[in-house]
């Protein structure tokens, strides 16, 4: 409880600084208002990506210098309101209340001003001045909406700046207005929404009860209003702040006025209606916008699906025709040269030192480097889909399928990306707002067979099953996807049961994408992955090298082989001898290593490897080996990405354990089933 309650008066006016001080600016706005474009214009590559303390939501901040004035800009999560329904909303309001920026710049979409001002109505209750940037006035004009900034400014009592951020119009102006407000050069006397008369009285009562106990710095009228809105977090906290008798009275009042939330929202829109009445005009009515026309195709269950598949086809084509060659080039020149150079430099050093540095550390670094082109192309594609507004249509079209396995339509994009590479897929799960849905998607992503695993499949299946390779390969991929759906159903049923999700999503207007925004989006994502995952990948690569190289000369005499032999009793269930176990384990660094490992262990390569393998391994064991390799723990880069996205070793371990368990289970089932079918004999 607070012994020194603060009465909420007018905003404290900061003393006029002798020298222009650096201003801290919070960038707020609803989703799809072009906030990331404004942020990237302001901060460019100075932007730093971190996480909000104790949260999995990204925090982007950076510095901007405009007319010699320095600004520190923090990009708040895009939220429709500031109630505590989602993590993003809690983060946005906690930032404003705890970190107290000098000023908030709120961006609004000119084409849907009324709905956007709902967030403003909430921001105006908090003790930080707000400047309004009305973005995308060009798009709004095309939609037949004209708005007059001066009229809106006069009504709201705060600066209003019209903007077209994609053409860098109004961005400097909005910051200049923010500086003028923060310095007290321009007045900030906003018209605030008031509660509707029906609940005026109960509001006053609640206010009077909570005001003496609300901690300093928290506006009591805000707390009272949030209580009426049924805000979970404020309700929970008020229970602690208030003495029991006061809380009992508040609780009783709230119970009697459960419908207050509707009234609060209604009053805000009533206020918004008054604000925009004179400021917004619709000179051209009845035209069909591009968005409506394009949506006839994009959201159609049939055509929309066809379009979506075509778009994904493009993304994969781009990845393999652009990123693939670049990756190959990086491997051949940069990585190979670096390792040749390092090996040369270490020529006089002991073998173990050059081994661990060249074949362990540098090989790991090489994996990190070769991920760059793939990730970059994927994130360019992702940024493009997001920036144009098409991404939400994909989610809409796919929701009816994803819904059945407890997933949100938005989970489709990351899962589908997984066929290319699991790493960007796990990172792509960020598009899903709710944490449980995001976690479920992250858990499922490694079950999507990535291109490296498909490559192993494409290489090994013809060696094991020369008679009908296509049938076996397709069968395995389909079985893999069936397992994915099964795991999804199980997790949804048991692990995420209480989190049945509502599908509510805005379909933004289509926009011409902004190349700068997309480039910066891709660059920061790739850079963040490199920074966070590189250490894990390099360390694991070094450890695996040690395990493979010692104590004996050959793999067969290594620790890993010893470990594999130890695991033989478990492997026997799946028909795997120690050699196949070692091949599986060594694929942890990179999935395609399974092929090379088999070659080294069996001492042959190419065509000869096929003959050797066919002679040494029964079809049943071969089938089980393939199944295990598709389901087994994902590669180290994916594990690193899971750790990066969940911010939790617990969830990372859960994901790895889940893969391991399903590999064991299905490997055993397939082997035993195949043996029963008579595939246990030698030769295919």
């Amino acid at each position, binding site marked *: 409880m607070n012994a020194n309650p603060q009465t909420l008066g007018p905003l404290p006016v900061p003393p006029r600084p002798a020298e222009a001080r650096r201003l801290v600016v919070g960038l707020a706005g609803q989703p799809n208002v072009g906030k990331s474009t404004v942020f990237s214009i302001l901060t460019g590559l100075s932007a730093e990506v971190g996480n909000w303390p104790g949260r999995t939501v990204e925090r982007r901040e950076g510095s901007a210098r405009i007319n010699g004035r320095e600004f520190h800009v923090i990009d708040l999560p895009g939220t*429709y309101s500031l109630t505590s329904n989602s993590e993003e909303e809690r983060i946005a309001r906690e930032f404003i209340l705890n970190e107290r920026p000098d000023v908030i710049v709120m961006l609004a979409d000119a084409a849907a001003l009324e709905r956007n001002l709902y967030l403003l109505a909430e921001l105006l209750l908090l003790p930080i001045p707000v400047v309004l940037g009305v973005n995308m006035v060009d798009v709004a004009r095309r939609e037949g909406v004209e708005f007059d900034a001066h009229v809106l400014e006069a009504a709201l009592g705060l600066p209003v700046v019209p903007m077209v951020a994609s053409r860098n119009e109004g961005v400097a102006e909005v910051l200049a207005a923010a500086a003028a407000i923060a310095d007290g050069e321009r007045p900030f006397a906003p018209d605030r929404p008031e509660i509707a008369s029906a609940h005026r009285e109960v509001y006053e009562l609640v206010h009077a009860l909570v005001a003496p106990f609300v901690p300093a710095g928290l506006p009591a009228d805000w707390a009272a209003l949030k209580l009426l809105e049924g805000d979970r977090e404020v309700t929970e906290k008020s229970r602690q702040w208030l003495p029991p008798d006061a809380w009992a009275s508040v609780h009783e009042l709230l119970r009697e006025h459960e419908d207050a939330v*509707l009234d609060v929202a209604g009053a805000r829109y009533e206020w918004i209606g008054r604000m925009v009445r004179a400021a917004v005009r619709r000179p051209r009515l009845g035209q069909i916008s591009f968005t409506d026309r394009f949506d006839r195709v994009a959201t159609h*269950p049939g055509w929309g699906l066809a379009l979506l598949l075509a778009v994904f086809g493009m993304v994969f084509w781009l990845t393999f025709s652009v990123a693939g060659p670049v990756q190959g080039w990086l491997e051949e020149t940069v990585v190979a040269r670096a390792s040749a150079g390092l090996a040369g430099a270490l020529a006089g050093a002991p073998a173990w030192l050059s081994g661990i540095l060249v074949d362990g550390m540098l090989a790991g670094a090489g994996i990190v480097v070769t991920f760059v082109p793939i990730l970059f192309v994927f994130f360019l594609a992702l940024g493009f889909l997001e920036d144009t507004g098409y991404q939400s249509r994909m989610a*809409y079209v796919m929701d*009816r399928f994803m*819904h059945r396995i407890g997933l949100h339509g938005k989970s489709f994009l990351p899962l589908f990306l997984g066929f290319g590479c699991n790493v960007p897929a796990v990172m792509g799960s960020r598009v899903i707002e709710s944490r449980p849905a995001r976690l479920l998607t992250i858990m499922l992503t490694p079950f999507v067979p990535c291109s490296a695993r498909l490559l192993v499949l494409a290489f090994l299946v013809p060696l094991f099953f020369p008679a009908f390779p296509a049938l076996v390969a397709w069968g395995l991929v389909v079985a893999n996807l069936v397992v994915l759906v099964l795991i999804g159903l199980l997790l949804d049923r048991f692990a995420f049961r209480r989190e049945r999700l509502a599908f*509510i999503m805005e379909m933004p207007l289509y926009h011409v994408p902004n190349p700068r925004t997309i480039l910066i989006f891709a660059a920061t994502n790739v850079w963040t992955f490199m920074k966070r995952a590189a250490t894990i990948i390099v360390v694991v690569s070094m450890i695996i090298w040690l395990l493979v190289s010692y104590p004996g000369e050959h793999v067969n005499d290594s620790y890993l082989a010893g470990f594999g032999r130890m695991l033989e009793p478990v492997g026997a269930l799946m028909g795997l001898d120690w050699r196949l176990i070692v091949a599986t384990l060594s694929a942890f660094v990179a999935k395609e290593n399974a092929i090379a490992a088999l070659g080294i262990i069996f001492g042959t390569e190419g065509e000869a490897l096929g003959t050797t393998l066919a002679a040494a391994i029964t079809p049943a064991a071969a089938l089980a080996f393939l199944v295990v390799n598709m389901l087994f723990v994902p590669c180290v880069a994916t594990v690193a990405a899971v750790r990066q996205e969940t911010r939790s070793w617990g969830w990372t371990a859960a994901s790895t354990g889940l893969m391991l368990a399903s590999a064991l289970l299905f490997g055993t089932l397939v082997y035993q089933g195949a043996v029963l079918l008579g595939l246990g004999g030698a030769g295919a």
Partner: protein
Amino acid sequence: MASPNAIALSELPPGFRGVVARVAGGRELAARLAAMGLTAGTEIVVLQNRGYGPMLARVRDTRIALGRGQADMVTVYECESADPRAAARPAATG
């Protein structure tokens, strides 16, 4: 639900215009929808509804996709004297 002539949003055909009567289903859903512009008394136009899967509606210049479960919670009045502003806007997608 609330009133004899209010119909669940999920049962309305594309092109239907009306006024939101009520949002049932608890405070949380009501608050989320309100923040996106869907409140009682708002004009609403059904843009797409195929009887299965999610549906699309427009409120306050915002296109919102709603799952069936959520659309069941919203009831709508048919409005005879629709706002000419809304009536002039043609229905998209069918």
